[in-house]
């Protein structure tokens, strides 16, 4: 029965939650803490804080960990599947349909028309990261890191992986 509840607890936030993993965390909390009482709010907060200390997508870290706590490896797999599969299936079906007609002028026009709106979405997301940084690290460190990463990424063409590792080192030394 726990497996079925686990499935529901991660399936529902996955199909009603918009805005990527971080946006669906509160929905997962409602299911996990309030509806199925797998853990207390405080425990959930602890798990979330630890998840944020690790890299990678947050929704799957929460699903994988909570599933494991509730029902072992099988629970972990069930929670992960419920998080990932439904929306991925929709994605594959829609994009396959789109690719079938990719040479039609209408689809080409659609691709062109949605591009500026994607640019704006990415810019808004960029702004949110700058804002977070301003509140957490302060204006001076934010400006230093923005300028340095821009120079390394855009002017010197250094791979983002190396720039991120560099920023981790900077944070460990100057922001701790």
């Amino acid at each position, binding site marked *: 029965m726990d497996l079925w509840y686990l499935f529901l607890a991660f399936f529902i936030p996955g199909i009603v939650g918009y805005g990527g993993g971080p946006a669906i965390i509160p929905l997962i909390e409602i299911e996990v803490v309030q509806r199925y009482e797998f853990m207390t709010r405080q425990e959930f907060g602890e798990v979330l804080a630890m998840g944020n200390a690790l890299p990678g997508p947050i929704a799957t870290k929460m699903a994988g960990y909570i599933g494991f706590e509730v029902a072992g490896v099988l629970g972990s797999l069930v929670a992960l599947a419920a998080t990932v599969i439904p929306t991925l299936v929709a994605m594959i079906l829609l*994009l396959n349909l789109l690719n079938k007609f990719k040479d039609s002028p209408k689809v080409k026009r659609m691709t*062109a028309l949605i591009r500026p709106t994607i640019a704006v979405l990415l810019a808004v*997301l960029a702004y949110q990261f700058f804002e977070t940084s301003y509140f957490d690290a302060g204006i001076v460190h934010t400006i230093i890191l923005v300028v340095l990463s821009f120079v390394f990424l855009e002017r010197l063409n250094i791979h983002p992986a190396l720039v991120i590792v560099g920023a981790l080192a900077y944070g460990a030394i100057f922001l701790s």
Partner: protein
Amino acid sequence: MTKSKWAVNKDLFISFLRTGLLGYGGGPSTIPLVHKEVVHQYKWMDDQEFGNVLALGNSLPGPIMTKMAGYIGYRIGGFSGMIGALIAAVLPTVLLMVALISFLVSFRDSSIVQGMTQAIAPVVGVLLFMLAFNFFRNSIKGLGLPIAISLSVVSIIVYVVLNWHPVLLIGALIIYALTTKPKKKEA
């Protein structure tokens, strides 16, 4: 020379492993990293196709990283590519979480870890901003400056001022494009 299916699936696995392990700040922070791997490093897709993936990914609910990994894996490497990319994107960090949970309790409050996490946000901001700029520049090429700017202004109003969900605008644009006759200049 075309790579064997196994080699392609290995590339998929490695690229999503890298992005998963480098993305601090949840799925959205991995978007520019995925773009780098998929469009620049391995050239599996061009900017236009990646833009479509992002647009639909943002219009569908659920985590964005697994939608990108799953779809791109499927598109490039078939079903096995999809499974490989998903495992690479998801499993390492889940395993770390389960294995290190007791260790993380002390680790989480360490100021070094907090400093490291804080230093990533501005870098992700720059990466996302560059990607945004790249999309905007390409859309000027495709649509011309006036239409690209008007659509951007409309998008800013819808997302920032009105705070509506992207699916409304993206959906409206898709329906408009598919149901009306293209003018020569736009296509």
